[in-house]
């Protein structure tokens, strides 16, 4: 495998409760590269992230991280009990002990320095995502893993956040693996898109994926209306559970 890669996922398969949730998934992230996982709800995106982070062990395949790599992780859905008195500053240093100046710098980098001394429960959705990102940056990561980084953020804020992630990549040269549900929002800021529905449906440059039949069938209803022409020549279908049906060799496409 390519030694320049920060992360290599090799033919990972995962079965949970007798259901194949990830099938033969391979992907990689290089230094300075932004890779976006995209797919419908329940497609296994977060499960794949958890496998990559070593939180779940896959039955088959391997996740290879470059030795000595530091990962900054931004989880999906994080709610903090109102009973826990915690300022933003304190929240950020729970992951990595750090001085005031470092915390301030990380928050300034993500544009949330204003809320540093506020109770964490009182910050808005967009600010909270920036605080989470600052906590990940404080680790000085080689690879950022971001699970739905723009959730609970309004549309303008979503563009701004993706832009910020792109700028952080430019400045720090780290690799980024992120999960998103909307390809059109990340088009301009991602280098590679992997379209996931339990298996890799298709992957490639965002422009090519956005016109790929597998993508269009899976997620393209919205996007298809905006595209002038698209050829509907997909080679497989998905049933209600997202499993591929009616195709002789599920790995022949994409």
């Amino acid at each position, binding site marked *: 495998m390519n030694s320049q890669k920060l992360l290599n996922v090799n033919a990972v398969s995962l079965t949970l409760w007798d259901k194949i949730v990830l099938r033969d998934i391979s992907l990689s992230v290089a230094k300075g590269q932004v890779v976006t996982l995209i797919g419908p709800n329940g497609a296994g995106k977060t499960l794949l992230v958890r496998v990559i982070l070593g939180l779940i062990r896959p039955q088959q395949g391997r996740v290879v991280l470059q030795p000595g790599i530091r990962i900054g992780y931004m989880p999906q859905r994080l709610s903090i009990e109102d*009973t826990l*008195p915690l300022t933003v500053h304190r929240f950020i240093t729970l*992951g*990595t002990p750090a001085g005031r100046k470092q915390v301030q710098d990380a928050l300034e980098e993500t544009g949330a320095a204003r809320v540093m001394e506020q109770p964490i429960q009182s910050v808005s959705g967009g600010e909270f995502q920036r605080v989470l990102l600052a906590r990940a940056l404080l680790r000085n990561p080689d690879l950022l893993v971001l699970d739905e980084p723009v959730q609970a953020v309004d549309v303008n804020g979503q563009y701004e956040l993706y832009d910020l992630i792109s700028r952080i990549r430019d400045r720090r040269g780290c690799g980024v693996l992120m999960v998103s549900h909307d390809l059109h929002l990340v088009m301009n800021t991602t280098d590679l898109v992997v379209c996931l529905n339990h298996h890799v449906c298709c992957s490639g440059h965002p422009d090519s994926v956005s016109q790929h039949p597998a993508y269009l069938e899976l997620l393209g209803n919205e996007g298809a209306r905006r595209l002038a022409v698209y050829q509907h020549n997909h080679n497989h279908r998905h049933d209600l559970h997202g499993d591929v049906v009616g195709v002789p060799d599920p790995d022949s496409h994409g």
Partner: protein
Amino acid sequence: MDDFLLRALLGGIGVALVAGPLGSFIVWRRMAYFGDTLAHASLLGVGLGILLGLNEGLAVIGVCLSLALLLVALERQRRLASDTLLGILAHTSLSLGIVALAFLETVRVDLVGYLFGDILAVTAQDLYWIWGGGLLVLVTLAGLWRSLLAMTVHEELARVEGVPVLLVRLIFMLLIAVVVAVAMKVVGILLITSLLIIPAAAARRFARTPEMMAGLASVLGCGAVAIGLWVSLRWDTPAGPSIVVAAAALFVLGAAMPIRQFR
């Protein structure tokens, strides 16, 4: 002051000091019912301890810890919800404990004392147990503090950031088991959870940091012990329940106090 009263006060304060920080974590982690289940199970520990001739405190810790591990294993099955499992384990173990004690024909056991505490009967040996165990719990908790706090906020994030989550959770359960064993004498099996939770809940409004909440909970707990004991002497009420009522009164007083509320 009478000797027995001094011992009661020292015992109660020892327990309240530990209960503050540990109880805060139980509130933050929503583990009130879990703590209650371990407390119920401690009667089984008492019964087994007497039957097998083991040290009572160690038997209680052993039973509480086994129950905690059993619960973790059962939760992995995902057949029944956690609160259902806790309910089953809590009352089964309490009943098993009472049944076990009934088999002891030669030893008469003060069941009411175990259920509601017998703080006025605290001996010098109990005091060593309370303060020794309490100190051990506090030191361990201080060492785990940041890891445990990070896990409480988000377990997987903490794991990615290098916290040995499973180990820390096991030690935390052990600490709860020790405190249950230690507090049993003071407020009794049925009221232990209240001493863990009420002072912490009362402290929340006035705290701006986790440490402040934990410390304030300890102070309020000590206050509740002192007031409860005084009430108990003055009006000849049962001591354990009086302490809990005092804690509840402090909680209500705190909730009614007109201050700017920190969220």
